[in-house]
């Protein structure tokens, strides 16, 4: 079945440090989405990447889609305490279904 690996499982950083989470698939992806879930909350959509090699930025967040469309990354520059939460990638299978499969998530903790 579809394998979506997300690493690391968690990361604890000092406020101001950078943070990166990676999402890797065993098969070519149609597109990839990123979500953030605050503790006790629900996932909130951040961005969608569709094109091979695509790079998108949202303020301190940079999202990349690999050239082979099998991996993606989310990089946060100069983390803040408001960045605390779990970051999930979600992939759409290229099997003509409409399943959106979530990675296991990376939990980010930020020390003030």
């Amino acid at each position: 079945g579809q394998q979506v690996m997300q690493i690391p499982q968690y990361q604890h950083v000092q406020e101001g440090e950078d943070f990166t989470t990676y999402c890797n698939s065993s098969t070519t992806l149609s597109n990839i989405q990123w979500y953030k879930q605050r503790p006790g909350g629900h996932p909130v959509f951040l961005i969608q990447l569709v094109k091979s090699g695509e790079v998108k930025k949202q303020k301190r967040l940079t999202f990349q889609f690999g050239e082979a469309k099998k991996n993606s990354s989310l990089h946060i520059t100069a983390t803040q305490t408001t960045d605390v939460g779990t970051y999930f990638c979600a992939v759409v299978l290229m099997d003509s279904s409409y399943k959106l499969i979530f990675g296991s998530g990376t939990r980010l903790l930020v020390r003030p």
Partner: protein
Amino acid sequence: NAGVTQTPKFRILKIGQSMTLQCAQDMNHNYMYWYRQDPGMGLKLIYYSVGAGITDKGEVPNGYNVSRSTTEDFPLRLELAAPSQTSVYFCASGGSLAGGFGPQYFGPGTRLLVL
């Protein structure tokens, strides 16, 4: 717009009981999804629907059933509750954009405890 609403917010069930988790969206989205999230874990797709009258299984459908009689509503049914179904259940809806999927919008979740 209310977005995606879920009821109840919290429920305790005894083993063997049944219940329906309600989900409604007012964004006229075709796609709707049910996920479960166990403590400290990711989201697992239970069932999904691409439109009224069309449903399909996700990754973990056993023990659940769904129906989609209208665009707005997508209830999830648990027939014989088991302790393994203790989890937080999220409903989500989404539309399509050029190039494929659009964002998914999640409801606030239903916390279910089976004892």
